[in-house]
């Protein structure tokens, strides 16, 4: 009967139910979008690092992120790394912000990624037109098709200029987004050096691949001792550093998380207010229950069941709308990511939010004087 009573109480006042559900829905959509944006941003920030095949990253001292590698490394560091026991390969990567000059006039910022796919370090993924190997062709670059408009080009074969050098789009990828909104442009390491005016053999990062069964910590310690003025980071450390830089140093992540918290607070306040007023309206019924001998635990169960039903209904509605928003965001520059883990988390926080909201109502009913049934 607990569930029956809870459901009937909930549906008894349709207007209040709608207000409650709108509150939860609004909250869920807001939290889903904010956290989805956060996850989407996180993925964009670390996508390059995750797709690079390397156990250790050698960076210039103070490198902030993948896009901001800082001072250029020289062949000396590369040779020292190659001579380190346990190291199988050291793959150079050239990465830097660069000016993309649109064929129709004007320019935009881009992130030039110089990599030689045959080295097995970082290979463009999600190629939907052309081939990654075509990067070796003269003047070739690869861009993501979602940035064609930003880059002022129409597609395959389009030409543009990076810094002072001419480039031609030889392949298109799908799904390689940039958190900085400066599109990634792939080309070979040597062409990247040429376009950026960097001396031959110099690089932004060295991606270290280890021999099988090599101890990563031991190799890392060895590399540190051999390479002065550089940093030797594990993949995880470099990921975290990039995330710190873009999400927290810039405040973007804080804003997204703050938005999510705000959504939660709004949800809690709305649901608490409606649950409390519903409880107040049914106070005489709860007093009757108490007079009939029900324990306070029984009444609390009714209120919690009301909260749980509100949570389930609100979650279903909220997630339905959130999924529509997610679907619309897929092709945008800032896609919202909805993962199964986020969906489960949202379900949990919806329940948590409704449980917290029930507290004021529970406090109210535990103070019920069953004698009020006689004063009606």
């Amino acid at each position, binding site marked *: *009967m607990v569930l*029956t009573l809870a459901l*009937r109480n909930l549906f008894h006042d349709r207007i209040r139910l709608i207000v409650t559900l709108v509150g939860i829905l609004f909250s869920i959509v807001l939290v889903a979008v904010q956290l989805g944006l956060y996850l989407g941003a996180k993925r964009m920030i670390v996508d390059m690092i995750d797709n690079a095949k390397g156990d250790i990253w050698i960076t210039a001292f103070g490198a902030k992120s993948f896009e901001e590698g800082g001072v250029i490394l020289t062949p000396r560091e590369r040779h020292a790394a190659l001579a380190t026991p346990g190291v199988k390969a050291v793959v150079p990567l050239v990465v830097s912000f660069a000016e993309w000059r649109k064929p129709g006039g004007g320019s935009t910022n881009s992130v030039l990624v110089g990599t030689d796919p045959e080295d097995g370090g970082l290979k463009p993924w999600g190629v939907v037109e052309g081939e990654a190997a075509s990067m070796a062709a003269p003047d070739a670059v690869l861009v993501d098709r979602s940035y064609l408009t930003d880059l002022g080009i129409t597609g395959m074969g389009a030409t543009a200029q990076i810094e002072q050098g001419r480039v031609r789009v030889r392949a298109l990828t799908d799904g390689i987004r940039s958190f900085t909104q400066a599109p990634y442009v792939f080309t070979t390491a040597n062409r990247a050096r040429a376009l950026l005016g960097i001396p031959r053999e110099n690089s932004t990062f060295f991606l270290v691949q280890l021999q099988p069964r090599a101890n990563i910590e031991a190799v890392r310690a060895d590399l540190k001792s051999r390479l002065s003025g550089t940093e030797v980071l594990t993949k995880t450390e470099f990921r975290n550093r990039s995330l710190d830089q873009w999400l927290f140093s810039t405040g973007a992540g804080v804003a997204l998380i703050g938005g999510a918290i705000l959504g939660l607070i709004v949800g809690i306040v709305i649901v608490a207010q409606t649950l409390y007023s519903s409880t107040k309206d049914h106070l005489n019924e709860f007093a009757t229950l108490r007079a*009939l*001998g*029900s*324990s306070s635990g029984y009444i609390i169960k009714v209120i919690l069941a009301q909260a749980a039903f509100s949570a389930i209904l609100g979650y279903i509605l909220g997630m339905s709308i959130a999924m529509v928003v997610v679907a619309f965001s897929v092709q945008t520059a800032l896609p919202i990511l909805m993962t199964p883990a986020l969906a489960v988390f949202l379900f949990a926080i919806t329940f948590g939010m409704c449980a917290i909201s029930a507290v004021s109502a529970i406090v109210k009913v535990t103070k019920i004087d*069953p004698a009020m049934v006689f004063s009606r």
Partner: protein
Amino acid sequence: MTAQIILSAKGVVKDLGHGAGMVRALKGVSLTLNAGELTLLMGPSGSGKTTLLSILGCILTPTLGNVTVGGESVKGLGPEGLADLRRRHIGFVFQSYNLFPTLNALENVRLALDVRGMHRQEAHVRAEKALRDVGLSHRLRNYPRNLSGGEQQRVAVARALAGTPSVILADEPTAALDSENGQAVMALLSQLAKDKSRAVLAVTHDSRTIPFADRIVRIEDGLIVGEERRTESRENISKIDVTRKRKAHV
């Protein structure tokens, strides 16, 4: 043969409010409810009827004195202990029925059994029987809004009855009813009181209820001032024992 005492109140004093606003609502009330009897508690407004009913119903605890129900004392019991006592021994019938508007008649009765932790199936059967016993077998699925006042009060009686309590306490059970329905409800309570394991007490202003009573207890100004015991024939009031008690204020 002495009647079995189901509920007993001894020297009950009840203070309501605090400080300067404190009122002594009951000033030393002693009363027993016997099995197989319908007792009417009558008195003017403000005489302490409802306070006494709340204390006998284990909703309030006395400031002084003691109440025992089914041999169990209320002394030292907190809200949960009192609720447990009510659950096991007491059924209530309220003036305004206090039915749950969102539940139908059957569900209203089942709810009273559910709070007792009764299994769903058994509760269903018992609730149906209780409603049949009060003549509402044809109204099981009706919601309170679709029932007449008399029918609602009969659902309330069925709800009180379903848990097989040893005491049924009714607060002005006919106050919201017309004469015909009031008589029907009193007849029902009178019938329930014939059960030798149960006592029924009804607080009332309504003199039309008197013919149904086995005993009439009068309360004034927080004191029991009279008790009339009636013969076996409930149709004719014949006082066989009238005691006028005036107790000193406690």
